[in-house]
């Protein structure tokens, strides 16, 4: 005997104690597939036979089974299951997870059972138990199908039990092995002429042959019909004929639609209401020969509710399908596929109110469906409804997969009047943009793991998302603008030179050791980091970014806050930048109408005035006061002959240091009265339509930006840079001199990057940039007198590991956010990345690095 188990089933072994269930299970299933009630009893009570632990044991058992079924794992329950009330939860659990409940009954004669029991030492219950179980089973064995088991196998002798062969079969809906490309065609409803036109537009050659069709698809392509072939339209029989011939020929798949199912019922003589266009179909079919009707019946009966195709990347169902039902089989799955999810309410047109399952869809597979006529096919969360209401005078549409390209033909006439007008939404935003107006907290909080294209999946700890939620909520710009957040940047390794904490040599060394030959050194500006999302015109904010209000863009800080408090100034900056983009022709060169720029905005005073007053200037003024008085006092003491020479010398040095410190912060404190005092230094053109510019090297970025800067030399500030060959000592020394020169004049320092935006060593991504800060600049980081020997010695002990790891993770996430935005994914997928950057920023790391 052969038992063909559906690959997704919940198998109940049924039989009295000693019937050999455990032995049977061991022989035919993986140990992890079998969950035994005895084992669960032992788990909760240390005793396999403890009857008073039954309830708790079954709680555990059901919990484990539920987890397995949820994950799509075949599971076997090894318990006696002889009583109907014990079997009822098995059927219920299988249904809940849309798996097939299967019963395998081991129905051996009572004498055999008794004999086996007598030999056992591990069962200490009395002799009356087995006969009672035996009797219960016998009484109910014929009710198993009625109880809901999809398949029932009864093995009533030892030989059958020994010889049974168990095989596993994929579900009918499992077409994962059928690979792209496909052309998925929406609800036809008997619109035969439009169907032929669409097929031809898609490149299919359609030929009528006697009472069938011969359809030749373009090389390698196949069609998939989303169902509702019939009703309302003028030629349902030919639609059926064409689809049937293609399915027959293996050039198409077809899933069932609710109209198709209803037609089948009617043809089978069942009593259905002849409404919603069924009358036309029946009338048209009356002219058809009996054999055709019979073949239609066979065809319709065989239609499957949905298909999972292309390695699980594509799901086609008439009314769509939730993730947890995909590839599963149950009455609930079938009815979801046919009718969708409804709330039970009726709307003002007398139609059932549909629950928009797609708005909550988070699945990996693309879902293509129809059923509800809409004016335009629109993407929402990787799902698309392609029923563009042909029969109601709309269009017949097809989706080319995997190209995601829509192809449609206009209806030749209005075949039926829709109950609800097709063009009702007056929305300017797309369905996805509308949906993205509200983000869900469940998509950002808690412990998270984000897969990035740069190869790493990044873990976000719960405590860090807690911190990010507050910052994002209270201070963040609109999430639709926040398509990127910049990463932190690591400094160089600490310099061994006596007077330096940081020096370019170590930055060069880092890249040289990683096998990088060409690097770029960019002047580092001391201002405030800003990300600027800039639109070509105000409409782009609506069209591409999905904002309700038109705007020219958004300038925000590295933690996602609005950069400018003064909105008028903000607008003026955006206007000027836009003009510069125009003038430099960059909008057309980049072939885009939006761009994301990574910038430094100067002067520092613009954002940091209160920090400068409260911290930097305060330390300066108090330092001078205290140190001057100390020196004067020490001098008097010295004149008295006290031993204070060393102290005096030290305080003189500290006094010089505080002056240097003051000069250092003053380098960055130009007063801002108007836009004329503001300078913007862009240094990366991060992304524009269709492209994240990480594939261009930094020379391209610098040159393109220099070109942009020429268009507005008052506002825009080109960054000086040098490209260095790390095998050329002259170039290296030149670069070091350049850095010394720059930093002595008050420059912050420089950033060293590999020439290519993304650089790898043995497939491992390298630090995208390393900063090397000037000796004087570092006074405002490490304190005025950090250069004193006793201080520098201690400060040189600093660990960079954490900072570097953080820089890498944030960089990967930031780029991932852009990649996703460019791909037009739902906002939550972009948002989770920038939210992640913000979360990582709350990890504790030395803020001076």
């Amino acid at each position, binding site marked *: 005997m052969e038992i063909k188990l559906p690959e997704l089933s919940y198998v109940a072994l049924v039989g009295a104690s000693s019937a050999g269930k455990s032995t049977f299970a061991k022989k035919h299933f993986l140990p992890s597939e079998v969950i035994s009630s005895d084992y669960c009893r032992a788990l909760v009570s240390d005793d396999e036979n403890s009857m008073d632990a039954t309830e708790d044991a079954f709680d555990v058992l059901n919990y484990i089974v539920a987890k397995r079924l949820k994950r799509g794992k075949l599971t076997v329950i090894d318990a006696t299951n002889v009583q109907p009330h014990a079997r009822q939860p098995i059927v219920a659990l299988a249904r809940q997870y849309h798996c097939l409940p299967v019963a395998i009954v081991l129905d051996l004669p009572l004498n055999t059972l008794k004999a086996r029991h007598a030999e056992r030492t591990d069962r200490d219950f009395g002799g009356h138990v087995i006969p009672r179980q035996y009797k219960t089973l016998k009484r109910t064995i014929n009710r198993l199908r009625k109880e809901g088991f999809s398949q029932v196998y009864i093995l009533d002798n030892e030989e059958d039990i020994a010889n049974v062969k168990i095989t596993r079969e994929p579900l009918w809906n499992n077409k994962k092995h059928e690979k792209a490309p496909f052309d998925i065609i929406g609800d036809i409803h008997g619109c035969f002429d439009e169907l032929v036109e669409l097929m031809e537009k898609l490149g299919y050659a359609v030929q009528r042959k006697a009472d069938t069709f011969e359809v030749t698809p373009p090389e390698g392509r196949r069609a998939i019909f989303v169902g509702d072939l019939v009703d309302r339209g003028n030629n349902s029989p030919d639609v059926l004929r064409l689809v049937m011939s293609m399915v027959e020929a293996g050039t198409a798949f077809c899933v069932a639609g609710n109209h198709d199912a209803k037609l089948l019922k009617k043809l089978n003589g069942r009593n259905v209401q002849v409404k919603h266009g069924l009358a036309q179909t029946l009338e048209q079919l009356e002219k058809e020969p009996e054999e055709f009707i019979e073949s239609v019946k066979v065809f319709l009966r065989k239609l499957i509710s949905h298909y999972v195709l292309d390695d699980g990347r594509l799901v086609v169902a008439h009314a769509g399908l939730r993730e947890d039902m995909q590839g599963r089989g149950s009455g609930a799955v079938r009815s979801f596929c046919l009718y969708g999810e409804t709330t039970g309410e009726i709307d003002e047109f007398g139609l059932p109110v549909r629950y928009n399952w797609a708005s909550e869809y988070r699945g990996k597979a693309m879902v293509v469906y129809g059923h509800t006529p809409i004016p335009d096919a629109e993407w929402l969360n990787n799902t698309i409804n392609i029923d563009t209401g042909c029969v109601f005078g709309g269009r017949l549409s097809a989706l080319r997969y995997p190209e995601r390209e829509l192809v449609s033909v206009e209806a030749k006439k209005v075949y039926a009047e829709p109950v609800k007008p097709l063009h009702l939404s007056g929305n300017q935003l797309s369905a996805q943009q509308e949906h993205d*107006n*509200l*983000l*869900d*907290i*469940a998509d*950002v*909080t808690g412990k998270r793991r984000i897969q990035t294209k740069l190869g790493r999946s990044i873990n976000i700890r719960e405590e860090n998302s*807690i*911190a990010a*939620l*507050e910052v*994002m*909520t*209270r201070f963040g710009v*609109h999430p639709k603008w926040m398509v990127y957040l910049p990463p932190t940047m690591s400094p160089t390794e600490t310099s061994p030179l006596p007077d330096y904490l940081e020096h370019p040599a170590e930055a060069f060394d880092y890249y040289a050791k990683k096998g990088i030959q060409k690097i770029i050194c960019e002047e580092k500006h001391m201002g405030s980091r800003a990300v600027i999302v800039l639109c070509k015109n105000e409409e782009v904010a609506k069209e591409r970014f999905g904002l*309700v*209000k038109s705007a020219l863009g958004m300038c925000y800080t590295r933690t996602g806050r609005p950069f400018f408090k003064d909105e008028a100034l903000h607008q003026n900056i955006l206007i000027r930048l836009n003009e510069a983009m125009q003038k430099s022709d960059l909008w057309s060169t980049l072939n885009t109408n939006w761009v994301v720029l990574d910038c430094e905005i100067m002067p520092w005073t613009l954002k940091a005035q209160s920090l*400068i*007053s409260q*911290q*930097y*200037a*305060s*330390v*300066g*003024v*108090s*330092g001078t*006061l*205290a*140190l*001057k*008085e*100390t020196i004067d*006092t*020490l001098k*008097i*003491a010295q004149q*008295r002959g*006290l*031993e*204070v020479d060393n*102290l005096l010398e030290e305080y003189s040095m500290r006094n010089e240091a505080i002056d240097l410190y*003051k000069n250092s912060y*003053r380098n960055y*404190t130009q*007063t801002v009265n108007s836009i004329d005092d503001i300078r913007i230094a862009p240094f990366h053109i991060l992304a524009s339509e269709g492209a994240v510019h990480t594939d261009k090297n930094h020379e391209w970025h610098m040159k393109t930006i220099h070109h942009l800067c020429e268009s507005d030399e008052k506002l825009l500030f080109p960054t000086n840079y040098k490209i260095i060959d790390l095998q050329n000592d002259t170039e290296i020394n030149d670069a070091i001199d350049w850095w010394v020169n720059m930093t002595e004049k008050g420059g912050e320092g420089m950033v060293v990057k590999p020439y290519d935006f993304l650089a790898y060593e043995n497939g491992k991504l390298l630090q995208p940039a390393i900063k090397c800060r000037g000796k004087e600049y570092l006074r*405002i*980081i*490490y*304190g*005025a007198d*950090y250069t004193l020997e006793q*201080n520098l010695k*201690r*400060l040189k002990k600093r660990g960079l590991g954490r900072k570097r790891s953080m820089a890498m993770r944030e960089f990967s996430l930031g780029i991932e956010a852009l990649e996703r935005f460019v791909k037009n994914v739902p906002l939550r997928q972009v948002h989770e990345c920038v939210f992640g950057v913000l979360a990582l920023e709350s990890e504790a790391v030395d803020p*001076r690095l």
Partner: protein
Amino acid sequence: MLLKISTTHQPATDLGYLLHKHPDKVQTFDVSGGNAVVFYPEATNERCTVALLVQLDSIDLVRKLKTPSTSLMLHHYVNDRPYTASSFTSVAIAKTFSSALNGTCKDRPELVEQVMPFEVTIPALKVRAREGVLENIFEPLGYQIEVTQHPLDEVHSEWGMSQYVSLKLTNQLTLKDLLSHLYVLFPVFDNEKHHYISKDEVEKLIRKGGDWLQYHPEKEFITKRFLGHISSLAKTALTRLIPEEERLAAEQEEAQPEPEKKVRLHQVRLNAALEQLKASGAKKVLDLGCGEGKLIRMLIKERQFERILGMDVSYRELLKAKSKLYYDRMSPRQQERITLIQGSLMYKDARLKGYDAAAIVEVIEHMDEERLDAFEQILFGYIAPQTIIITTPNGEYNVKYEFLDEDAFRHSDHRFEWTRQQFEKWAMRMSEQFDYQFNITPIGDFDEEVGAPSQMAVFTKN
């Protein structure tokens, strides 16, 4: 940080005996955060000056010293602590001049009670308080003071004056009193402490300042600041700082009833919200933006409310709320009744569904007007409870607050403060868009011209 104390008492070198430090030596002592050098730049019979040079190590301050996280500058290498008189100076005084501060002098005990002319020089003192505070505090103690103010940066005169002053004090008093004044007052002006504050600090304050502080007109200000604004500690200290004669008088008058306290505006607001929640008949209620849980503590007393959910975006506030509710010690049944979650009104959140009423008390003004649309759709469209109660300040009332500049808001985080008309217009839009009825009432003392300080809208779903 340098502190100089001079005297012209004859012979002036008696100062050396009092301080128990020889005038011809340069001595170094370990103190918290670094060391202190004591030396005498002058030591003649006519005039003697002691200098206390507190040398803080700014690297150790960051890397080694455990300091309260509230103090921002302490965690940076760029730090004024090494330069300005602060709690570090107080601790250094207590360490190096402990006998003088405690009023003992082994060799010349008679000097302890000797009143002498003193002059104190402090080159840099950070004064974080309104103008005149130096005078108000030092003058009642008999000091003449000379204050020099300094600009934040001589190159940037437009930045204005700094918080630092150079101070010269002269007075006739005992050294013990002088040191105790300085010990108590440095951290008071600076308004920051580098160490955690516990009950011990109350003892220190009473011990060092008890004699003079109880009569000082700024007693409360000094006490509160010395005790880091921890109100329970300040209360304890202040009760103990009531002068003997006042205490006796108070005991005789004990029977006098206390004047009725004015109920604070926030309490009025919460009472109003509570009344509306009760009147709505709601059983399951949301307190969105619950902060430290004041309203929740009122709600749990009402049997009507079967389920209470408090949400705030700040995790720290929630922890406070949890501790003030004694949540961990509640019975399981009580715990089941109350849910506290971190959440945001900018994200839809399934946990907020299924409640009858929501109170959003003084929350909306903390959101950018630009982003209110998300809040509106989530509250009125997605959560959509039967009753919604929203309170927000009435901006018109601000003219009544003297401390507010024109166009300023009551709280630095307020993004807007609507007029009555603006609030009504918004409420009207909500009611039309989401099918609610509403009713707005003033909250707090009503003024004919500008209305009440706060306003409350109650929305009911049609």
